[in-house]
């Protein structure tokens, strides 16, 4: 299951050019991006770097676009922005120039309808020009003017519509326009937009090289404890197996402790309130926050409760572990909002057992509990289950059928742990 897709293509490189006035995000891949830009510069054409800051460039474009007849394009080249009609554009051969198609935001739905009709009339010659539709002013004025910032989406998603402000109709028309002008990147655009609406800046993440390798592990940690984790969806029977395993290990004279990295209390109540805010059609950008809050709470718990125990006990047992956070991100967002990085301080588990359980059975077991969470429904549980199975395969976990029964599972887990410890000479 992909944790993100490298999304830099010709358009993004062009957009990077546009954003050249701001710093690339600090990070190990910034130099790679700079090299890519330099290579393009020498191979394709002399790129003109716009050195002004993006905000003033946007204002300039917005000023120019005000009152332009619909269908006028703006060509950015050699430190200048030129106005050209659609017809003129077909005469201009400037592969390096950035060709913007500004669309009025006064009545964007009407403007989009008109421009779509016109592009269909003009034919492929115009549609193949590589025009990039943009909506100058859509984000609102600079905050220096005291104006409200309209969008809640990251700068790199220039041209996408903030979900809280714009209508589905407008977004659908915009999708049509992208499909017409750039059919090859239509699906990618939708992926960007979906993630952007949920608060994920894939563009920024791609530039940071998140997809290229795993986060750096803490190589300096030397701990006494063996780490064993039991994972699985709600109702899989993790707690009883953990307690049973702890009893078994203690009978062997090994000191044990069980930790739960998903906490209840004020944290859980607060993050649940945040989740309720984004569970509807608006405030979608809060989805990322509620996941990051959960990840960070586990991080707080690690430094407050777990870290010292790694040197204090022979075995530290976890009721859910890092994989649960990864599965929650993948299951809900098809994306990991930085859990891999933030939780890389947790030591890799020596053994992880996934108690796999059919969703219907899990729901039946959960129904006997007094309270249900928002995720305890067939769809989300199935998503989490699939994500856990995918991670288990990737990470080499021991996958066990939770319906084997408590005693059957207990014997398998105990025997496997004993084998593992013997192999370790422990």
């Amino acid at each position: 299951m992909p944790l993100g897709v490298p999304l830099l293509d010709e358009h993004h490189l062009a957009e990077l050019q546009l954003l050249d006035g701001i710093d690339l995000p600090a990070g190990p891949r910034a130099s790679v991006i700079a090299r890519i830009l330099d290579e393009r510069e020498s191979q394709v054409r002399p790129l003109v770097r716009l050195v002004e800051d993006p905000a003033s460039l946007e204002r300039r474009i917005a000023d120019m676009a005000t009152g332009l007849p619909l269908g006028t394009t703006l060509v950015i080249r050699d430190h200048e922005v030129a106005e050209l009609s659609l017809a003129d554009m077909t005469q201009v051969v400037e592969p390096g120039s950035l060709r913007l198609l500004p669309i009025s935001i006064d009545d964007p739905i009407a403007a989009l309808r008109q421009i779509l009709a016109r592009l269909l009339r003009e034919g492929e010659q115009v549609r193949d020009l590589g025009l990039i539709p943009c909506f100058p002013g859509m984000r609102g004025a600079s905050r220096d003017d005291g104006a409200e910032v309209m969008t809640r989406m990251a700068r790199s998603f220039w041209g996408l519509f903030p979900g809280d402000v714009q209508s589905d109709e407008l977004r659908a028309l915009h999708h049509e326009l992208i499909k017409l002008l750039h059919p090859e990147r239509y699906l990618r655009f939708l992926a960007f937009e979906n993630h952007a609406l949920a608060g994920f800046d894939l563009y920024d993440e791609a530039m940071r090289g998140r997809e290229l390798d795993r986060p750096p592990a803490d190589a300096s940690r030397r701990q006494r404890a063996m780490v064993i984790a039991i994972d699985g969806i709600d109702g899989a029977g993790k707690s009883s197996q953990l307690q049973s395993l702890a009893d078994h290990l203690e009978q062997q004279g090994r000191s044990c402790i069980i930790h739960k990295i998903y906490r209840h209390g004020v944290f859980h109540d607060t993050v649940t309130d945040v989740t309720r805010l984004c569970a509807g059609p608006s405030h979608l950008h809060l989805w990322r926050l509620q996941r990051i809050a959960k990840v960070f709470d586990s991080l707080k718990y690690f430094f407050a409760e777990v870290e010292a125990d790694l040197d204090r006990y022979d075995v530290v047992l976890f009721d859910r572990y890092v994989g649960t956070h990864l599965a929650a991100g993948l299951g809900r967002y098809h994306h990991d909002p930085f859990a891999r990085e933030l939780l890389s301080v947790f030591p890799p588990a020596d053994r992880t057992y996934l108690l796999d359980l059919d969703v219907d059975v899990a729901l039946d077991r959960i129904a006997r509990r007094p309270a249900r969470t928002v995720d305890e429904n067939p769809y989300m549980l199935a998503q989490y289950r699939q994500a856990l199975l995918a991670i288990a395969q990737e990470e080499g976990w021991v996958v066990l059928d939770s319906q084997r029964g408590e005693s059957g599972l207990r014997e398998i887990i105990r025997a496997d742990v004993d084998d593992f410890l013997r192999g370790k000479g422990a």
Partner: protein
Amino acid sequence: MSLELYIDPTPSLDPGRAYTPLFETGGEYARALQGLAGHDRLLARLPVSIFLEIHSYEALERMRDLMRQEPDPAAPWWMPFWPASLFDACGVVSHPALELQGLFPEFARTTLRLRHAQDYERAARDWLFRPRLSVPDYERSVLRFAESLGWEVIHP
């Protein structure tokens, strides 16, 4: 219950002032920040917005926590930064601070203490992860909040 909020990057500069910290030295939040501090390669992969979001959420959670503990009305709750202005100061356009702010309890009185640039920078080192914080942008933003929400402002 009448709650009071005190926003000051470095309240230690006014030793006589009583306050209840939303961010505590030695608390879980501070310990997690200290724990991450040595992981430079890891931190380089994380956008600043992550830490601003964590900080903003932490403020809300601590408020909820204190609400359950019979708050002392004589000691206003202290936080170093107004979250939404932190995002403004770091140039982060897309953020959840306004929604989180909407979940804050109602404060009968809020006092904003402005400080010198180095005091903000020190507070950012203590309570955030080395963000490139523009102090002028922060002050511009927080003063707008102060004006619109009717806060008392104390100048340096």
